C-alpha cells in the first residue's frame, strides 16, 4: 500500500510540478503586428520622391528585422503585407483579431522638411463612456471593440512615448486619443505612430529606436 502511495505521488506530482515550471507549456512569444499604411492600390501621401505606402513598408520591415529576437523566441513580429500586395478592406483587422496578437502598431508617415524626424503617437477613441469586457460569446460592434483593451493601449502608448523621449534623435508627440482610422476594429492593445521625414531621413536609425521602444514595452 505504501508503494502504491509513493507511485501515485510520483505519477501525479511530476507532471503537475513540470506544468507549473513551464516544461510542457513554454512561454508564448509576445506577438507584435505591424501595419504598414496603405498597399499597392492606396499609395497614400507623397514623401519627396516616394509614396507613403512604400516608405511605411520599408520602415515596418526594418523595425521587424531589429525587433525579432534570434537568440530566443520571446518576441515575434509580423508585418501586414508584402510589396505589391493589395489588401481587402479591414483585412488587417480581421487578420490581427484572428491571430490574437499582443500589440498592434500602425506605421504611417508624412513629408516634413525638418531635419529631425518626429513621431506622433495616436490611439483609437470615440470618447465612449462605456466599459467593455471580453466574453466568450458576445457581439461587439466594430467601432467599439477597442474598449476591451483600451487601458492596455493607453499604458503601452505612454511607455513607448517615455522611451522615445530619451532619444535625442527624435521629437515625440502624443499619445492622442481620437478616431484614428487604421486602428478601428482592433481588439488587442493598439496604437499608431505617424513619422515625419524626407529623403534625407535615416530610416535604419529611426527603425532601430522604434524597435527598441517596442521591445521594452513588450517585455
Amino acid at each position: 500500500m505504501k508503494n502504491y502511495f509513493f507511485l501515485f505521488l510520483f505519477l501525479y506530482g511530476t507532471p503537475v510540478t513540470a506544468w507549473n515550471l513551464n516544461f510542457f507549456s513554454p512561454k508564448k512569444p509576445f506577438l507584435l503586428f505591424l501595419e504598414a499604411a496603405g498597399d499597392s492600390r492606396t499609395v497614400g501621401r507623397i514623401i519627396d520622391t516616394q509614396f507613403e505606402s512604400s516608405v511605411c513598408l520599408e520602415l515596418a520591415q526594418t523595425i521587424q528585422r531589429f525587433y525579432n529576437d534570434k537568440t530566443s523566441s520571446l518576441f515575434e513580429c509580423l508585418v501586414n503585407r508584402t510589396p505589391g500586395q493589395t489588401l481587402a478592406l479591414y483585412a488587417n483587422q480581421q487578420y490581427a483579431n484572428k491571430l490574437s496578437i499582443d500589440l498592434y502598431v500602425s506605421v504611417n508617415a508624412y513629408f516634413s522638411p525638418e531635419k529631425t524626424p518626429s513621431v506622433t503617437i495616436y490611439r483609437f477613441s470615440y470618447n465612449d463612456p462605456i466599459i467593455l469586457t471580453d466574453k466568450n460569446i458576445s457581439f461587439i460592434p466594430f467601432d467599439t471593440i477597442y474598449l476591451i483593451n483600451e487601458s492596455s493601449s493607453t499604458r503601452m502608448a505612454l511607455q513607448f512615448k517615455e522611451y522615445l523621449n530619451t532619444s535625442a534623435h527624435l521629437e515625440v508627440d502624443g499619445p492622442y486619443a481620437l478616431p484614428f482610422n487604421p486602428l478601428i476594429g482592433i481588439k488587442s492593445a493598439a496604437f499608431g505612430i505617424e513619422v515625419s521625414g524626407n529623403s534625407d531621413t535615416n530610416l535604419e536609425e529611426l527603425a532601430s529606436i522604434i524597435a527598441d521602444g517596442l521591445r521594452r514595452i513588450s517585455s
Partner: protein
Amino acid sequence: MNNRNLIIASVIAFLGALFFVAYQKKIIIFNCGGYHSIPATAIEKKQITFFFFTPDKAYTETQLMVLDQYHDRTLLLILNRWLEIALEEKLVPQKVIVQDTALNQDFTDLYLSFDKVPWAAYAPTKVKWFILEGILHTIKNLGFAITKVYFLVNHKPIEDYHLNFSRAWPINGFMQNA
C-alpha cells in the same frame, strides 16, 4: 377619343408639367399674401468667436456677424466665415465652403456637408484633426444644444485614410484626451 382631342390633352399635360417644374425650381412664385415678413427681433447681430488650432499655437478671432433666426442657417453663415478666415490664415489649402447644414429634431445632432475636404492631401493627421477641432470649438462656443457633429463631403461621410468619420464627432472634440 379622336386624334385632335388626344393632341390637345397631350399639350395641356405637357404645359401643366412644365408649369409644375417651373414652380418647383422657383422660376414662377406665387404670392398668395399669406407670407409674413420676419420680425426685426428675429435677426440679431452678435460677436462670434472663431477658434483656430495649429500644431504650434491656438488663437481666436472675434467678429460681429448678422445671424439668422434659424440655427442651421446661422451655422452655415458662421462656418463659411470660419473657412474664409482659415483660408486667409493659410490653415486650409484652398477655398472650401459648407454646402449645407442640417439639425435633427432635438437640435442635438448637426450634419455638416462641405464641398470638398478642408485639408490638403499630404497633411499630417494632427493638422486635419486641428482643423476639425477649430470648427467644433467654434460651434460649441455658440451655446446651441448641439452635442455631436457629422462631417460630410457632398452629403456623404468623409473618407479619409487616417481619420474615421463613420460616427459623429462629439462637440467637445478630442483635445481633452491630449
